[in-house]
């Protein structure tokens, strides 16, 4: 796979939930992981940065390259979630949602791609959401932002396919992470009964899907893989 030589990975949103699970699994598989997050992550090189801040993110990526070496894997898991009826999504909320999700992905790609293109190899995995595929009530801004990530992923994949960089997305279903509050409707038994698997997705299952793409997914690019407990089929 790409990055056998360096095996340096950047994971955004690495401090908790899906990002933390991905970071832990990659470290277990021999990757040197830099975790970029607003909070301090449990990774080899934790850097506290807002992914929506393009300059700050670029500085952080430069620091990773300086300390660990060139980056051959980027996983964008940074995110936020809130359910808001569409009439109550004010401009600030809308912009913040897009800035963190779509902006966070784009900023990270801008920062890591020059290095990947210089070596002619690399892998980018964006974490999107089943809500980008099927939508959900109160999720207009979240679904729009995550949907934009999938469109971006597909286009970047085609643009970079002949240059040795693969780009895929993982669209998890409702996952058992701190992003889902204890009283979240996604945790309610009535909702879980609607899932064919009858349970939330485990963060480790999302991480395993990323690991598949990293280790044996060389024929995937532009794809969206959906470990979603059957939420969207």
């Amino acid at each position, binding site marked *: 796979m790409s990055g056998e030589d360096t095996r340096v990975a950047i994971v955004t949103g690495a401090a908790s939930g899906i990002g933390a699970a991905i970071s832990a699994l990659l470290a277990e598989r021999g990757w040197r992981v830099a975790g970029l997050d607003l909070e301090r992550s449990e990774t080899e090189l934790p850097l506290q940065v807002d992914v929506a801040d393009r300059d700050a993110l670029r500085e952080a990526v430069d620091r990773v390259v300086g300390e660990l070496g060139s980056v051959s894997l980027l996983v964008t898991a940074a995110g936020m979630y809130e359910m808001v009826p569409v009439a109550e999504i004010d401009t600030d909320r809308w912009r913040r949602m897009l800035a963190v999700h779509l902006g966070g992905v784009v900023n990270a790609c801008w920062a890591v791609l020059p290095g990947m293109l210089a070596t002619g190899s690399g892998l980018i995995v964006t974490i999107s959401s089943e809500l980008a595929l099927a939508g959900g009530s109160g999720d207009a801004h979240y679904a729009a932002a995550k949907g934009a990530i999938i469109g971006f992923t597909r286009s970047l994949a085609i643009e970079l396919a002949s240059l040795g960089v693969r780009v895929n997305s993982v669209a998890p279903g409702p996952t058992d992470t701190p992003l889902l509050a204890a009283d979240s409707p996604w945790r309610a038994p009535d909702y879980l009964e609607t899932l064919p698997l009858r349970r939330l997705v485990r963060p480790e*299952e999302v991480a395993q899907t990323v690991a598949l793409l990293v280790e*044996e997914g060389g*024929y995937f690019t532009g794809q969206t893989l959906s470990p979603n407990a059957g939420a969207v089929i």
Partner: protein
Amino acid sequence: MERRFENKLALVSGAGQGLGHAIARRLAAEGARVAVNDREPSPRVDAVVAETGGIAAIADVSDPDAVTRMVADVEATLGGIDVLVANHAYMSMAPFIDHDPDDWWRNVDVNLSGTFFLIRAALPAIRRRGGGRIVIIASEFGVVGWANATAYAASKTGLISLTKTLGRELAPEGIAVNAIAPGIMDTPQLDVDAADAGVSPEEIRRRYAGEIPIGRIGRPEEIAALVAFLACDAGGAFVGQITQPNGGATRNLA
């Protein structure tokens, strides 16, 4: 390599060559005992059986009675079935209006009905093991369609719909059903394509690779790795999904 299939029992259809051979080899390498299905006995089936330490499971999957007998033999010999991989396929291409009706239906009988017969026969055995995994090999043609492949594409899109429906139906009892819709793969089918096109096997591979965004044809081992993922705990959150390893050839969601 991890050994995620210790004490697991697998039945792989169409395992005498190509993708099925690679899938059988991978599952066996990770510890599974594998039943190697093919349409008829042959030296190449014997070779796969020998290589994997498995058993031969001969049946034409389009013959429901033969499938029932074969699955019963597999369950009796191996002791059960945990993983079923429906990989067999028949493909013939012709302009729709010219396609011989019997041959047209042969695509559907083998690919779609054959998979139904296999799953119907294996389900009781999988249930007796307390759950399991089913992986169906569909095709990129079943996602985006293909000129002169109405029968094959229809059968493969039927498999996609079967996967989604059975995914919903069987997940609550611990049986995950998922599919793989590969793009162009380096299998013996390419030699058939080369003969049809009147060019060398190398030339057909070069042409196909040039049409794939990442610039190469898929390797059977890559499909085998994906089957293994979907059939083990790592893929436990996948239900009714259509995965599409195709080198970027299409980004349509199936």
